[in-house]
């Protein structure tokens, strides 16, 4: 069988994806259709993110891959291995050392910096999809900026539950124009997208769409003045590192249902734990 190209995709395909990326960066939040390829991992398992990463990766890059905030979840391991094998790039688990971070469902806790690129894996790129299943309709709604239904949904949430009942994949408006889906990150992460120093790229392989938030771009989560957007909070800090700033995962530790809360960002957790242990700790 033929020799596999650097980062799996052939150059023709990479060029096609880069063209889509350029357009996406030029029109923040606009979903650019692209001829998504079948990848050696299933659709729905990050093929969009993988294609974006493959198209922007250079041999000098240092790649970090996370799923649910962790570097060692099965899918993160599998994607990191894929690029280590097909591109031979350096990999890292440290947010600060990475030039490209591919993620599923989280934004790292450590603030991203200029020059870094965050690549999101996106299952359903269309924020209007569950209000209107037809692509032909949603496309028109975006074109004409008809986003009233989004607020109707939020209104209904409050009328029914007393709260906006969206806890992840929380829709936001980018650069005062397009409403977009930040991928299924918890709404806790939404504020990190606003004026982020890093370039943020979103790839949806199965749905064949790419979109972007350029560095230092305004991203505002939809809300009402009297029911403002709020992020999740926890009563206790992380049980491992003691940090009170990150998003926490709930762990059930025994049959009696005892629970503890620990950082979902494993790199952040390790860094905080090391800080706490002090410079003398081994």
């Amino acid at each position, binding site marked *: 069988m033929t020799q596999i190209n650097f980062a799996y995709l052939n150059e023709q395909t990479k060029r096609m994806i880069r063209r889509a990326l350029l357009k996406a960066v030029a029109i923040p939040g606009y979903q650019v259709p692209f001829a998504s390829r079948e990848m050696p991992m299933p659709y729905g398992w990050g093929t969009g993110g993988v294609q974006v990463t493959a198209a922007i990766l250079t041999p000098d890059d240092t790649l970090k891959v996370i799923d649910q905030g962790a570097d060692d979840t099965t899918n993160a391991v599998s994607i990191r291995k894929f690029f280590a094998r097909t591109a031979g790039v350096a990999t890292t688990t440290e947010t600060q050392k990475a030039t490209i971070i591919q993620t599923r469902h989280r934004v790292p806790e450590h603030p991203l910096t200029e020059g870094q690129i965050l690549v999101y894996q996106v299952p359903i790129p269309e924020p209007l999809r569950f209000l209107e299943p037809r692509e032909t309709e949603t496309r028109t709604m975006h074109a004409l900026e*008809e986003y*009233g239904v989004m607020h*109707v949904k939020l*209104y209904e949430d409050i*009328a029914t539950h007393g709260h906006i009942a969206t806890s992840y994949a929380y829709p936001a408006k980018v650069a005062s124009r397009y409403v977009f889906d930040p991928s299924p990150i918890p709404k806790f992460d939404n504020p990190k997208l606003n004026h982020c120093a890093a370039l943020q790229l979103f790839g949806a392989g199965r749905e064949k769409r790419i979109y972007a938030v350029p560095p230092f771009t305004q991203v505002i989560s939809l809300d*009402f003045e*009297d029911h403002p957007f709020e992020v999740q909070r926890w009563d206790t800090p992380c049980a491992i590192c003691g940090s009170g700033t990150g998003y926490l995962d709930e762990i059930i530790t025994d049959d009696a249902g005892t629970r503890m809360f620990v950082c979902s960002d494993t790199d952040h957790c390790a860094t905080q734990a090391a800080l706490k242990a002090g410079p003398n700790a081994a």
Partner: protein
Amino acid sequence: MLLEVKGLNKRYEGQVACEDVSFDLWPGEVLAIVGESGSGKTSLLKCISTQLGFDSGTVHYKGADLGAMGEAAKRELMRTQWGFVHQDARDGLRMGVSAGANVGERLMAVGERHYGSIRQTAAEWMARVEIDPARMDESPRQFSGGMRQRLQIARNLVSRPQLIFMDEPTGGLDVSVQARLLDLLRGLVRDMGLAAIVVTHDLAVAKLLSSRIMVMQKGRVVEQGLTDQVLEDPQAAYSQLLVSSVLQV
């Protein structure tokens, strides 16, 4: 002038729906379009309100040619300055969301972002169309036909439009409900200074609501004039037939 329709023609494959229709509408004026079934009333209403394309002629709204207007500007008109009351309330309502959200939608679409005041306004409008505001979190599915029709009216009027299109607004309702609804509509139109085009095959409705009337037959306007005049002393043969064929009201 609010609306100016000139030489409008609309045909479906082989079938004439509107032929050379022209008329003017002034602010605050209510025009009734009457005519037998299939005479082209609904088609005309849809053409004017840009829901349906037409073959030739022009429609100007406040001097702007609707034919030359972009889709975005047209939709903007539809959700701010215009209202459309459908014969079947289900076509005009979002049946999947609460009554309150139905009324509040236009406010949100034009940028209102205060939940409390949206709700307040929605409640006021529900009261105004005689629906108990305590029922604002219910689905319109739980409403009667007459209530749905009133909800549809509230949903349209909440943005304080200047022109409202109504296609058989009292169709399918029983007589006593019809009478109440007409009363309500008459009051609203007067209080808000609304202009309206009301399609109806019922001359009693025309008489109650409109100041001017336009009689259509086979897609053509056969007569138009002040409602009282036309009903008292119809000129065209077809109008005479129409007036004489209904019970005196």
